[in-house]
């Protein structure tokens, strides 16, 4: 009844797009054309409902029914930005609610052969070079959120590495979310082109003011040429009112390696889609993830590895820790195409439920069309091992601390692989500080008990009951 009078959610978003189109300056025709096509696609498919298999466990009403404006300013108090920024030596691009902030960015350490710039700059310099690759991985049949992103996309990060370039300091792309009076949305675009044998570390950092309630919809495309090595970090510490949808797509050529660390700590509604296309022999993808949610947070991780060529490799390990009424979703998929022989694909997912009202929906999938493959996946869900808790308690550690330590140890398997200490520390403190049981981690670290506790492992995820 009321639907006849009120415009649909999709219409509201499209109205906003129309208003935006009216004030936007002239752009290359290809962008306008793609914008139009994306808007048409979005209008045709609309926001996904829970009846769509890919969105079975994730309700997007928070985004669909929200009122999100667009913003043009990047004002942010430098002091606060400094507090939120990860304290590491880095090449830094900062976006405030999707708008580039030159003041909060630092591109000084850039070596020769590497270029890191905002999308608007890249377009102004040579829009054709951008147009040649932008949107190649999202394809024509892109998802509703990728379509929405393309329709609105104006800003983002463009990272290009010439063949053989090695960038030592991490390249940080920082997305700051402000506590605006009117919630805003942003649709940043990230483009990473790594030339042959180049090497770099890229960190996408989502963080913001405590009371923010914005919607960020990122689409990232990564192209790895022959032998390129890219380590990609997602440090997601978005404010607890934020909604974040991130699509990260990777295309890999021969002998290239893509390592992804995805750490989810914040956000009210978070959805990641991570897709790697292993297109030539020797390409390798590694996915490591940790999601920690409490309160009423909802974190959804969808990962996909497409083994499109023989002798390609993938390894995946995701850990989930869920407390209170949080809900986690893990959907990992490994696809081996016809004639992609001698594949190795491993996938593992372990989840720890800290509360009876928390929920995890896990679905590790294998889709295999070749016979000479070694693929395995495993997933477990359980609780802390009471024997391990007892073991710690019998050594004079109070129960809450013991539980905290064991929870950290559970995350340890993934965190051990993190190469950036600053991230590992930040995560460890965040997880420990955010645990329902409070304990003083600092003093434990000093007395060296943490290592002992951590090395005990001891989460009830083995078969013996």
């Amino acid at each position, binding site marked *: 009844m009321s639907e006849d009078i009120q415009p649909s959610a999709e219409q509201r978003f499209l109205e906003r797009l129309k208003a935006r189109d009216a004030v936007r300056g002239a752009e290359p025709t290809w962008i306008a054309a793609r914008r139009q096509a994306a808007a048409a696609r979005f209008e045709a498919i609309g926001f996904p409902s829970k009846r769509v298999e890919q969105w079975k466990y994730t309700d997007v009403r928070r985004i669909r029914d929200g009122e999100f404006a667009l913003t043009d300013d990047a004002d942010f108090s430098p002091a606060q930005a400094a507090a939120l920024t990860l304290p590491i030596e880095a090449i830094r691009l900062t976006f405030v609610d999707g708008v580039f902030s030159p003041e909060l960015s630092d591109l000084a350490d850039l070596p020769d052969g590497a270029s890191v710039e905002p999308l608007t700059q890249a377009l102004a310099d040579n829009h054709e070079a951008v147009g040649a690759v932008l949107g190649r991985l999202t394809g024509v049949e892109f998802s509703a959120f990728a379509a929405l992103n393309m329709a609105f996309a104006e800003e983002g990060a463009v990272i290009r590495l010439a063949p053989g370039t090695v960038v030592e300091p991490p390249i940080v792309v920082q997305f700051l979310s402000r506590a605006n009076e009117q919630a805003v949305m942003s649709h940043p675009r990230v483009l990473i082109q790594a030339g042959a044998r180049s090497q770099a570390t890229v960190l996408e950092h989502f963080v913001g003011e405590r009371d923010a309630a914005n919607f960020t919809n990122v689409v990232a495309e990564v192209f790895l040429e022959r032998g390129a090595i890219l380590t990609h970090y997602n440090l997601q510490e978005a404010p607890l009112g934020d909604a974040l949808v991130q699509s990260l797509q990777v295309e890999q050529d021969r002998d290239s390696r893509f390592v992804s660390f995805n750490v989810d700590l914040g956000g009210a509604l978070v959805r990641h889609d991570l897709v790697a296309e292993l297109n030539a022999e020797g390409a390798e993808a590694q996915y490591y993830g940790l999601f920690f949610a409490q309160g009423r947070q909802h974190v959804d991780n969808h990962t996909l590895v497409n083994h499109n060529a023989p002798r390609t490799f993938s390894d995946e390990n995701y850990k989930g820790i869920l407390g209170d009424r949080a809900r986690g979703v893990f959907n990992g998929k490994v696809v081996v195409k016809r004639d992609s022989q001698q594949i190795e694909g491993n996938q593992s997912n372990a989840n720890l*439920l800290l509360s009876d009202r928390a929920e995890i929906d896990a679905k590790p999938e294998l889709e295999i069309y070749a016979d000479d493959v070694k693929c395995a996946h495993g997933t*477990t869900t*359980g609780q802390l091992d009471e024997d391990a808790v007892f073991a710690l308690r019998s050594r004079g550690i109070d129960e809450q601390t013991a539980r905290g330590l064991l929870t950290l140890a559970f995350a340890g398997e993934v965190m051990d692989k993190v190469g950036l200490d600053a991230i590992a520390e930040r995560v460890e403190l965040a997880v420990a500080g955010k645990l329902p049981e409070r304990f003083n981690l600092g003093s434990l670290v000093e007395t060296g008990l943490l290592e002992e506790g951590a090395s005990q492992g001891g989460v009830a995820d083995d078969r013996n009951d």
Partner: protein
Amino acid sequence: MATEEMERLVRREYTQGFVTDIESDTVPPGLDESVIAFISHKKGEPEWMLEWRLEAYRQWLTMKTPSWAHLDYPPIDYQAISYYSAPKKPEDRPQSLDEVDPKLLETYEKLGIPLHERAALAGVAVDAVFDSVSVTTTFKEKLAEAGVIFCSISEAIRDYPELVKQYLGSVVPQGDNYFAALNSAVFTDGSFVYVPEGVTCPMELSTYFRINAANTGQFERTLIVCDKRAQVSYLEGCTAPQRDENQLHAAVVELVALEDAYIKYSTVQNWYPGDEDGKGGIYNFVTKRADCRGDRSKVSWTQVETGSAITWKYPSCMLRGKDSVGEFYSVAVTNGRQQADTGTKMIHIGENTKSTIVSKGIAAGRSDQAYRGLVKIGPRAKRARNFTQCDSLLIGDRCGAHTFPYQEIGNSTATVEHEATTSKIGEDQLFYCRQRGIAEEDAVNMIVNGFCKDVFQELPMEFAVEAEALLNVTLEGAVG
């Protein structure tokens, strides 16, 4: 292995394909309320049953064919199917084996199932379903002595309406899914078992289903109720004659286990899988579900699926009683152009419920196979426990094996594990056998049987033997 040899073996004719010429009393193809009324009338059913069927039919009309399965087949024309076929002269049904139509007995002989012998020797009561009407039921007296009711569902509707009314549709409601709704509307036969309180069924119960008469779908409905502390083991085996048109098979099996009851349900399914182009095989869309209603009840599903062009089948357990147990052991073998999307659902509702899933899939030729399973732990299922293992073996580079396990866990005291692997037969394993003088094909059979051992050992003895033989036949020549 020589390609010709392989081809020859792969092309082996379906040895159990033949058509027995028995005059059928068949309704013209098509489905509407009058056809349902005809079936109901033919079966001499009471009014409430007809109403129940019509209710299901009306729900079916509003439903859509499910499309989520990893299957590819042309749309089915439900109006081209004839929904009733029964051997003639239902009035003078044979009372013993001697009276059975010799042609039918001959059919069983060809199938390698010497009914009388097997029944007598193995002590198995056989409720043979030849097309849609139960032809013979043996060992009735012995079962009656124990108080066990074992008859066709049609008889049960007539003779035990109260039991049927109480349980029919209580596990799989009429509108549960597209195929279950269709089955509820048009089912023509199937088995009914009731094991009263405290009784352990004195023998294994068995039904051989058989599809005959071209163009008729077979819609069985099986209902097994195990009262408190009762136990029963039920075997279901299938085989079908060769024909060209795809045949639809949409069965519904409902199991009810009350307190401390134990039901073991074993299936060997070997329907015609179609020719080498995948033409003519059986479409097998089955809904099987067990309701562990009582505390400490247990249901165990074991299946060996080697036949059918398309298999869509998810034997499930609803673990409602405290400490109830659900088990699912499955071997699925596909060859040629077969497609199978099969698995299980374990719904943990009660406290301390446990479930085990062991699924072994073997794909050869150009076949496609998927394991699809759901493990759901409800918020009240304290200390629920699940272990799942699903392994796939690929033989040849044109087949596919897929795993789609869903886990929905809403309880922190639950422990749920899932493991899956996909691989091919190891060259080193083969080599090891070959250098000890074992022929390649025998070696493969040995390895495959070893791969399936966890499931086969759950089968009743004769079934296990049959299953191993079936497996070898199905895979013959598929290995190179």
